[in-house]
């Protein structure tokens, strides 16, 4: 007569490889994460309610501070050089969007001059970076 053996061990999920999986994912995210390499200029962005999310990979940042200094790729650029610089960038990536990171107290004239340069360079897609709107703050 054959006797059936009863298995007495409790069912369990092996967790010993959890650490390995975590490290694997960790390495993946560490490699893929992109930190902002640009220092730019110190600006206080204006606030807007209608702000939409921009496609970060397509954005080229143009920082303009309160005094009207323009910084592109961490270099202070005079206004009349913007067109040449941007024309080159548009050639490299035709879908490029120019992101204005401009201080809210900057005179509009500076921004307008930069936009004229962009038109000349053919970089017509612009994005005005804003902060999230807070009630009670005028702009």
């Amino acid at each position: 007569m054959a006797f059936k053996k009863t298995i007495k061990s409790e069912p369990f999920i092996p967790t010993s490889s959890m650490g390995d999986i975590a490290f694997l994912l960790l390495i993946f995210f560490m490699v893929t994460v992109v930190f902002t390499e640009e220092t730019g200029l110190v600006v206080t962005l204006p606030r807007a309610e209608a702000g939409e999310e921009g496609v970060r990979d397509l954005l080229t940042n143009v920082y303009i501070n309160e005094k009207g200094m323009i910084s592109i790729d961490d270099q202070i650029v005079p206004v009349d050089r913007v067109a040449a610089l941007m024309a080159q960038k548009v050639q490299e990536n035709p879908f490029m969007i120019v992101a204005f990171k401009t201080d809210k107290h900057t005179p509009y004239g500076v921004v307008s001059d930069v936009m004229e340069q962009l038109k000349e360079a053919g970089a017509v897609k612009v994005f005005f970076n804003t902060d999230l709107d807070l009630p009670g703050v005028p702009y």
Partner: protein
Amino acid sequence: MGVLAKRKKNRGTNEIPMASTSDVAFLLLVFFIVMPMKQEEIGLSLVLPGKKTKETTVKIKQSHVATIKILANNTVTFDGQPIALHGLQQAIKDRIVSDPKTVVILETHPDADYGMMIACLDEVKLADARKVSLKTTKP
């Protein structure tokens, strides 16, 4: 019997505890996942008209044009009438309802604040105006 003889010998092995490595890994993992999410780009997008040519210039009837002017002292006028910023959205909406072909021209003085222009552009976007044109007042 001396005190020295009573001291117990520590026979435990010298091991670094590895049980919490996966916890540390998960903590770092969460950090690297959350990090890129924080760097969102929010703003207002716009397409500039590009180089001025005869083909790209479109003539619009004066009656279809709604002009928002920002003066050098940051005051806003809508079709020549001074208007408060919070009333602008409704004014544009009313205008679009009465004339769906309305083209909004945002004319800003070069000395006005960029923040003010963005605040007005925000109102224009909130009013769901599709045709927007930026203009700079000639000093």
